[in-house]
């Protein structure tokens, strides 16, 4: 219990530090310091609103406290481009990013666990010797280039899938859930998920393979053989079950990291997610939006790292039930 308490505190400290870092970075920009929150083309009303919200006429330390308090309640200011609260814009696209990332990770890790075990089982074979460098190559591949090839082949070439976006233009849905669960959404989801999954599977495949190889050398696997248990039972119930533990942690960590790296995949497929929001915001010098998008991405990352620690703790009986 104390362990988790410590991890939680650590997580909060990291979040605080990141927020502070951003605060300093934006304030350090040359020129008018209010430019981080106020766009020159704001109306007077909007200008006053933001000034009040962020205490922009107060001394810097006070501004910092107000800033932190605002963050805690989700107040990021107004988007320069869209003249709407940043939080709203971010929350609109958050589900898209989460869905994309989660789907891709599930596909990648499910495939990774299976293929990695298979490679371990087929150790020394020609198949394995060829596969391992190939898998390594997928980790060296730029995600956006992979996306471009996938797009060119399946969307533009074969016309099996749409070439971008999350929904077809002009489509109307009863509710947000309706939109997300529609076949149209799924249709748009396939190619981005495929691309991301191809890129992400390298890690679980290689990790599972090396875990399996290690576990297969353990005494309890030899014992299982001596007991006359079937090879399949040994591989699945004993070897894979033990080899899987680190993958669970990697999954959680991978989620956090992927949310950040999704930036390029979202851009290639014009997928309306956090990454694309960030890129567009930066391209338009829309600082509040950029800050908001970045902070939410960081939040997801840090949270997932924390959940990863939790997950490993829960799954490894040695941690839960105390090591002797």
């Amino acid at each position: 219990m104390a362990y988790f308490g410590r991890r939680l505190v650590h997580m909060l400290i990291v979040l605080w530090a990141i927020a502070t870092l951003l605060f300093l970075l934006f304030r350090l920009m040359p020129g008018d310091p209010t430019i981080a929150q106020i766009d020159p083309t704001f109306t007077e009303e909007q200008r006053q609103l933001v000034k009040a919200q962020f205490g922009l006429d107060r001394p810097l330390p006070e501004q910092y406290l107000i800033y932190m308090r605002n963050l805690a309640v989700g107040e990021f200011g107004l988007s320069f481009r869209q003249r709407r609260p940043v939080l709203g814009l971010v929350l609109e696209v958050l589900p898209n990013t989460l869905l994309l990332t989660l789907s891709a990770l599930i596909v990648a890790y499910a495939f990774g666990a299976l293929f990695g075990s298979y490679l371990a089982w087929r150790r020394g074979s020609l198949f394995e010797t060829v596969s391992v460098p190939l898998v390594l190559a997928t980790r060296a591949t730029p995600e956006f280039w992979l996306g471009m090839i996938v797009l060119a082949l399946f969307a533009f070439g074969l016309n099996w899938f749409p070439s971008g976006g999350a929904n077809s233009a002009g489509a109307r849905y009863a509710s947000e859930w309706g939109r997300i669960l529609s076949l149209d959404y799924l249709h748009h989801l396939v190619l981005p998920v495929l691309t991301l999954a191809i890129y992400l599977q390298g890690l679980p495949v290689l990790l599972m393979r090396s875990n399996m190889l290690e576990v297969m050398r353990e005494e309890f696997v030899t014992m299982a053989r001596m007991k006359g248990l079937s090879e399949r039972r040994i591989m699945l119930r004993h070897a894979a079950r033990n080899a899987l533990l680190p993958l669970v942690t990697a999954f959680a960590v991978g989620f956090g990291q992927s949310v950040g790296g999704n930036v390029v995949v979202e851009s290639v497929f014009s997928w309306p997610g956090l990454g694309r929001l960030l890129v567009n915001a930066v391209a338009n010098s829309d600082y509040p939006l950029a800050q908001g998008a970045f902070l939410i991405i960081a939040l997801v990352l840090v949270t997932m790292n924390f959940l990863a620690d939790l997950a490993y703790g829960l799954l490894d009986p040695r941690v839960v039930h105390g090591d002797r």
Partner: protein
Amino acid sequence: MSTLLAVDNLSVAYRRDGRAIRAVDGVDLTLPAGVMLGLVGESGCGKSTLARALMGVLPGNARIAGGSIRLAGEDLLAMAPAARRARLWRDISFVPQTAMNALDPVYRLRDQMREVLTERGGLPRAAADRRAEELFGAVGLDPRRLEDFPHQFSGGMRQRATIAMALALSPKLIIADEPVTALDVIVQRQVLDTLRALGRDLGLSAIIVTHDISVVAYLCSLTAVMYAGRIVEYGPTAALTRAPAHPYTMGLMNASPDLDRAVETLVAIDGAPPDLSRPPRGCRFAPRCRFALPACRESEPAAVAVGDQHRSACLRAGEAPALRAAAGRARTEAAP
């Protein structure tokens, strides 16, 4: 007494760096039913390899290079793999060394016991659970501990658990590889007592593989001494330990301190075991043997009977009493 296990001219070869190493070379062994046999030897003599060969789990780079293993009359090596696998654990089971990670860390003991009893024993779950509790009781463990994970057990308890597991299907033969080596002395004695009681109550047949001759003396009625892949002496434990008929065995007896007797000079055996990729010509112990004659380096000595069911693979086995007396004296004295 019927013969339970008959190992005939068994050889196991490893391939390492392109060389073939015979870790087990032409081993003959018989075990009557209801008897515990101690297989003694120093590290690297091939006893663990022999144990694993009997269980059919040699590592990938090892191969049976000849011979037969007859369990209750059937040659395990001549069988189809499926037939052999069917006999595993039912006819012949294994107790591993405690220090090893022999129990799956992510499953409770109850699940592991259940697995063996249902998958290999064909018992329905409830019956399996009852049997598991029975087995734990038989080895002196509280049946409530079945709920625990392996890491929650102490070394001695873990060892008892593996013994319980080995007994699960009431096998004809149990092979124990260094069953008490990794335990501290007091716990060792407790586990040995458990094994002794089981042997007596269940009429267990077992092969106890160990480097510690005192374990063998305590537990086994028969002893086989192994050196450099071969059995150098074999016979009833009492006779073998009191009156060893092979220089190596004599060395082992002299090298083991006996807490009961008065202070005596411990005599170490000089040198090291031979390189098995290039075994020496003649007797393998000759390079280290103070009693070696030129004839010893010519050819491998055949086993010679030196008593009832007692044989020794030494050219000078006939002179055993004199050699024993000489071996007991300090090293600096000249050999006879």
